[in-house]
């Protein structure tokens, strides 16, 4: 293979050449370091510094692959497909950036929130798990090796179960939530690895680019097809694709606030990326079973998710739980974008991944701040706080508007693109007119559930004996950074749109996008 020959002579000379590895290695090293130092005071600074370094690395990676092309990094000089390869192109650089950016912004918030919600003896272990979770998420996105994806998926999942269970100090139900998540997550991971096994059996390789190449050569057979089914179901569980979403509301509701913020904006997104990678790059979109799966299974399920989850969200009386259900609905939008299977659709899905990450992280932080001050997220507990915590509630309003998709916020643009994608396909199949109507109607349901919160915060009388005051600065700053980005990316999308579009093009090229990219970067 011409391509691997190009990459084989990998002799990295500068630190810059090691960026793909460092992206994962920095938080990975931070985790044991935190445990070994065992110091409560050092845990947070270490976690923050390594997240910030990860963010800088991901931005640098993004800058080098922004125009297309990819960076291939081989572990220990073993050339792929035998060795493990990290392969950074526009798509995963984009997701890496989202994950590390949210991971960094959340930490200042976590500092206050964790102190309040988790017993102090657990702090250093908590941040170690946090770093492992970050490692896992970054790793499963960065790697170009299918089995390596599974390894990192498990690293992130196992640490997530621990993180969710930390909510037990506040509410014992966090333990059952974590246990549920553990069972479901393990089933998902098992399905995924069974699928990988089948692929390995059929092709004899685990390198994604090589897999793509070989599947393209030999065409579809039953093993390859069943592998596809297992992989989709396994990842569907991780993505919280309807009806595999049952673990999500509980886990998000009972996890500590900071963990919910982090997970909601990153975990499902990373799994979604892997799902896209497998659907579009490893398997071709030209395989009839891929297209069928998207149009017959993904599309209706996505629409059902958008409606049913939004509907359930409208009846919640707990702010945090409401947001969890809204997340399921929003995942529906992303899956719908994928299922529309056009450049615009994929761009919409990728853009919505980012925009929803921003808005949801912001809203969950808002919940965290309210919980810090009032002790709970039930509507009765947070009513009338708009006057007492104006900055927190102001940020919640911005996040809520972006979740609805009001013009001028980031959420609007992804919904716009989604409707546009559906309408573009009306000429070939008029059913897509219904799809576009479904999108706008379901976003009206978002108005209902978000507006309920606004009314609770601003129009209801505050609890007479509530002594809530404005949230601390360490919480307000990250919240307003995210609120600012929700507004900024709502007006000026050039930057994000171009990247998402480039990423969508890369994905749509199918396996060709992985194999014959016009250039390789960072390789001598």
């Amino acid at each position, binding site marked *: 293979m011409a391509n691997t020959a190009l990459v084989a002579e990998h002799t990295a000379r500068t630190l810059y050449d090691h960026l793909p590895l460092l992206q994962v290695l920095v938080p990975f090293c931070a985790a044991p370091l935190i445990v070994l130092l065992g110091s409560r005071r050092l845990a947070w600074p270490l976690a923050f510094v390594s997240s910030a370094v990860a963010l800088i690395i991901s931005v640098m990676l993004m800058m080098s692959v922004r125009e297309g092309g990819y960076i291939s990094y081989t572990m220990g000089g073993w050339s792929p497909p035998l060795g493990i390869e990290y392969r950074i192109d526009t798509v995963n650089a984009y997701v890496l950036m989202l994950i590390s950016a949210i991971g960094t912004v959340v930490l200042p918030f976590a500092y206050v929130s964790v102190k309040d919600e988790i017993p102090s003896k657990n702090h250093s272990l908590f941040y170690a798990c946090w770093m492992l979770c970050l490692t896992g998420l970054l790793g499963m996105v960065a790697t170009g090796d299918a089995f390596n994806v599974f390894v990192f998926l498990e690293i992130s999942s196992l640490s997530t179960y621990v993180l969710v269970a930390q909510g037990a100090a506040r509410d014992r139900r966090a333990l059952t939530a974590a246990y549920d998540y553990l069972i479901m997550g393990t089933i998902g991971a098992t399905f995924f690895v069974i699928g990988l096994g089948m692929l390995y059996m059929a092709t004899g390789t685990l390198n994604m680019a090589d897999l793509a190449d070989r599947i393209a050569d030999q065409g579809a057979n039953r093993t390859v097809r069943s592998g596809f089914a297992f992989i989709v179901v396994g990842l569907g569980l991780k993505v919280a694709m309807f009806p595999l979403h049952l673990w999500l509301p509980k886990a998000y509701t009972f996890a500590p606030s900071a963990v919910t913020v982090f997970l909601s904006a990153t975990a499902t997104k990373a799994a979604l990326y892997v799902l896209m990678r497998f659907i579009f790059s490893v398997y071709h979109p030209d395989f009839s079973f891929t297209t069928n799966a998207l149009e017959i299974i993904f599309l209706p399920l996505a629409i059902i998710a958008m409606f049913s989850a939004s509907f359930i969200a409208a009846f919640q009386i707990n702010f945090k739980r409401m947001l969890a259900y809204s997340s399921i609905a929003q995942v529906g939008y992303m899956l719908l974008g994928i299922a529309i299977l056009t450049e615009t659709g994929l761009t919409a899905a990728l853009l919505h991944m980012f925009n929803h990450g921003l808005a949801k992280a912001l809203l969950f932080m808002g919940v965290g701040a309210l919980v810090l001050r009032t002790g709970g997220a039930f509507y009765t507990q947070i009513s009338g706080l708009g006057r007492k915590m104006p900055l927190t509630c102001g940020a919640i309003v911005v996040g809520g508007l972006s979740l609805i998709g009001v013009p001028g916020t980031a959420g609007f643009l992804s919904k716009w693109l989604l409707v*546009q994608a559906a309408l573009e396909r009306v000429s070939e199949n008029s059913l897509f007119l219904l799809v576009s109507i479904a999108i706008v109607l379901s976003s009206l349901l978002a108005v209902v559930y978000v507006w309920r919160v606004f009314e609770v915060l601003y129009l209801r009388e505050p609890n007479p004996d509530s002594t809530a005051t404005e949230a601390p600065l360490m919480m307000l700053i990250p919240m307003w950074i995210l609120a600012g980005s929700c507004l900024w990316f709502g007006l000026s999308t050039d930057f994000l749109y171009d990247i998402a579009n480039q990423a969508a093009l890369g994905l749509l090229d199918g396996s060709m996008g992985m194999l014959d990219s016009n250039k390789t970067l960072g390789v001598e």
Partner: protein
Amino acid sequence: MEFYTLDTMTALYCAMLLPFLAMAGNMAFSGMQNIRDTFTLLCAVLTFSCVLVILSNVGNDVTEPVSLFSVFPGVDIAFNVEPLGLLFAIIASGLWILTHIYGVGYMRGNNEKHHARFFACFCIAISSVIGIAFASNMFTLFLFYEILTVSTYPLVAHKGTPESIRGARTYLAILIGTSVALQLTAIIWTYVLTGTLDFTQGGILEGKVVGWVVPVLLGLYAFGIGKAALMPFHKWLPAAMVAPTPVSALLHAVAVVKAGVFTMLKVGIYIFGIDFLADTGASEWLMWLAAYSIIAASIIAMYQDNLKKRLAYSTISQLSYITLGMALASSMGALGGGMHIAMHAMGKITLFMCAGAIYVKFHKTEISQMTGLGRAMPITFAAFFIASLSIIGLPPLGGSWPKFLLMLGAVDTGHYIIIGVLMLSSLLNVAYLLPIVGRAFFMPVPNDTPRTYNEAPILCWLPPALTAIGCVILFFYAGTLQDFLTPIVQK
């Protein structure tokens, strides 16, 4: 003079940002009401001057769009100046000054709460109206259209009573619902079909769509622009009457509803194109629906005892004049519609301010309670009378001209029944507006009503008196106004 060297775009941005400055001022000085209200007044005057600077710089030319942000390929957040938008901006910012003065009198005279929040939201609404007026493409317009909806919600819910929250919910549900479900779909569809959303002389859809898509798309726009209160999506307007009267006066007689019909005209003239509509006959059904709205809303208005509700239904009927002007698909109709934006604004704001003045002084909301009130409040009721005549469309008041132009448009297109509709509507206007004045002046005064001069505070009666005089003045400048607007229908 230094003042006039301000270039057009700077003045435009200033006009949009000054209300925001006023909002910030309201937040900052929330405790000091005199400083706060004077500061807002100053900003309002400056906003109006900025719009006048644009007028003196541009006249009735159409300027090139200037882009602020790029959103998608072919879609920008961009602004330009054209006569219809400029007219709308002049009306909104000019009447803001008067309404602000009136609002200060009303809020203080009525002991309403949360003044700072009230005026702050008011400022955001004005800023978004200016944005709507100068938007150079449908995307930008939609952006400000939605900001306007969201920012007026707290104003409608201002009192915080269960009734006002219910009203505000209806308000929001209909406006957001129609705009997202229908208008947004229409906008994106237009973008998919044409690849652009810029307002272009002669429209952008011609040659891009044929057959059933044209009326369907027009329908999505017409119903999607919920602010135009076309039946059956008109319920939000009576529901919004729970708001304090300055809101009803400026926003629900002028800014919000006019933003709706302004959008309607923009879509008709610059997205579809008058000629394209005429050629395809796609707007014929809309014309009949508008005619139905005119008559039906007038009849409902006759049965309303609550003064503000009656005025709200009257507004619904009058707004349909403008929709009708667009749907006639003739240049006279479009001109009449454009002119009616100005004339109706002047008349209806007067009526609402009078209703508010009565409420401040005597706390009366029902027409049946207003018997004999004319002796106590002669200025208020005189202003009410003049404005009623203007709404009815009698000379020498401004409201007569747009009706005349609309009738010309109906003749041009051969729709003689529409002339009958317009005449019938005038008669219905007489039937629901003049009895209020008659009851106040000529019916015997009940015992609990003062017989001698007992006017509302000056801040409450002076602004409506001024706008009533404005109705008379507009009659004599209708020609100027028509010349000013002519470029919008030129090929």
